[in-house]
């Protein structure tokens, strides 16, 4: 089974909640769908369905603090681009100091090379990978500062694992339908501090959708 562990560090990010409207509410931790998107960007993959079946496990190493900022939001109410009605001010929540580890397991994938193999290749030999743009986590201003391959025992500090829990208070998407929201899929989680180096069984999330053409 192809399994790798990554350390990721992002100074600022906002993980916009699926049901947020003008007020830009953020999830407290990076959702599996967002992390999956970052990994696809890292390897230069534009087909979101390509690595369906991959499993992710996330452990937070920091406790991101939440702030609220006022920002200008563009919308198109009237055809004239310059019309002031196309701009409104809205609040947005942002998280600061996001550090986490993510394990990528590609045992259930049907494609070769697997996502874990491609990520490993991209990080060890960046020039061998065709990709474009900067690496973001969340919105396209939330630049990733560090992403690197690590071992299970990297930074032996306490880890707060994202554990699947049907009664958990954190609902996160593991698949986002960007055309409408009918295909978006969520799971419920809790954050739990567990003194283990390897991902607990209940921390794995499978990235999959019913109509995934690669499964």
């Amino acid at each position: 089974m192809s399994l790798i562990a990554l350390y990721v560090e992002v100074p600022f990010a906002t993980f916009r909640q699926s049901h947020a409207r003008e007020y830009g509410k953020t999830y407290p931790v990076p959702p599996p769908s967002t992390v999956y998107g970052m990994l696809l960007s890292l390897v230069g993959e534009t087909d979101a369905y390509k690595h369906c079946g991959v499993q992710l496990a996330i452990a937070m190493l920091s406790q991101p603090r939440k702030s609220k900022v006022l920002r200008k939001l563009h919308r198109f109410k009237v055809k004239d681009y310059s019309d002031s009605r196309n701009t409104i001010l809205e609040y947005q929540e942002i998280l600061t100091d996001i550090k986490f580890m993510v394990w990528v397991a590609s045992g259930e994938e049907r494609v070769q090379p697997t996502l874990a193999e491609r990520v490993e290749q991209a990080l060890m030999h960046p020039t061998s990978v065709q990709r474009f743009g900067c690496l973001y986590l969340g919105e396209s201003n939330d630049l990733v500062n560090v992403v690197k391959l690590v071992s299970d025992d990297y930074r032996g500090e306490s880890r707060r694992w994202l554990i699947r829990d049907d009664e958990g208070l954190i609902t996160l998407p593991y698949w986002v339908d960007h055309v409408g929201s009918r295909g978006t899929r969520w799971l419920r989680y809790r954050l739990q501090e567990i003194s283990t180096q390897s991902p607990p069984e209940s921390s794995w999330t499978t990235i999959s959708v019913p109509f995934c053409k690669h499964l």
Partner: protein
Amino acid sequence: MSGDAIRWALRYYWQQQCYAVNRFWNADTFKNILIDEDFDPVRFIDDDVLGYMKTEAAKEEIIEEDSETQGKQDNGKRSKKTKGKSISRLGALGVNRAISLTPYNRTRTFNAKSGGDKDRTSLHFHEYHNTRYQYGFALDPNHLKDKSRIFAVIDGLMSIRKVGGHNNVFCYDFSPESMVFRWTQKNSPHFFYCFEQHSLEVEPIISSDLIEQVEVEDIDGNELWIGGKIAKNLHLKDAHIFLGREQAVADLKRVIARDLDLTEFQPSS
């Protein structure tokens, strides 16, 4: 300070330097004017460097008739549903938030409105922050339609002026007093927010984290260009260190031109 504010200032710099920009700022009417609604990253530097997104709503949407009525031309219409569309381009440049090097200490001024009618805003406080800001950016030059635009990005960031703040107090300078560039093939920079200032009375320094990363060779010092006041008395293995900002930029541009096989620094027409 948001990355968007910095991106806005960068675009305005290009406009003032007579580069072709698609989003043109009219300083008299305080309005952005879009030159080409279809966008053109070849023609416009801002479309290329900063990216864009054009969205178009569905023009026609008729949702009706179940399967029983399909095919009966008189009683039912065929389902006709056009989709909206969006054309977007991810910009080659990413800009992070600018944050203050020192915490806000609640400094305020007391002001009075002069002349005219007095109202409830005649006496007012202004909060202000005497500080420096630091921010990070990343650029993928291979994603540019015109790779030589990388020089326009560097020149813009070195000369940037109007970033955030009041409309009428754009008078402070946002161009960098010191900067650290990393010219690398790596996927992530590993040194964002590498300036530290422990109080207003002392000058900023490079973070011990960056120095350690270079010392243990996690970051190749040869990939770093450091310029400005921060470079004073700084010793970092293999790094290109210049007291002068312009010297640092000129040396970096020379290496970029060599690596990207660019023969001149002149902006594209």
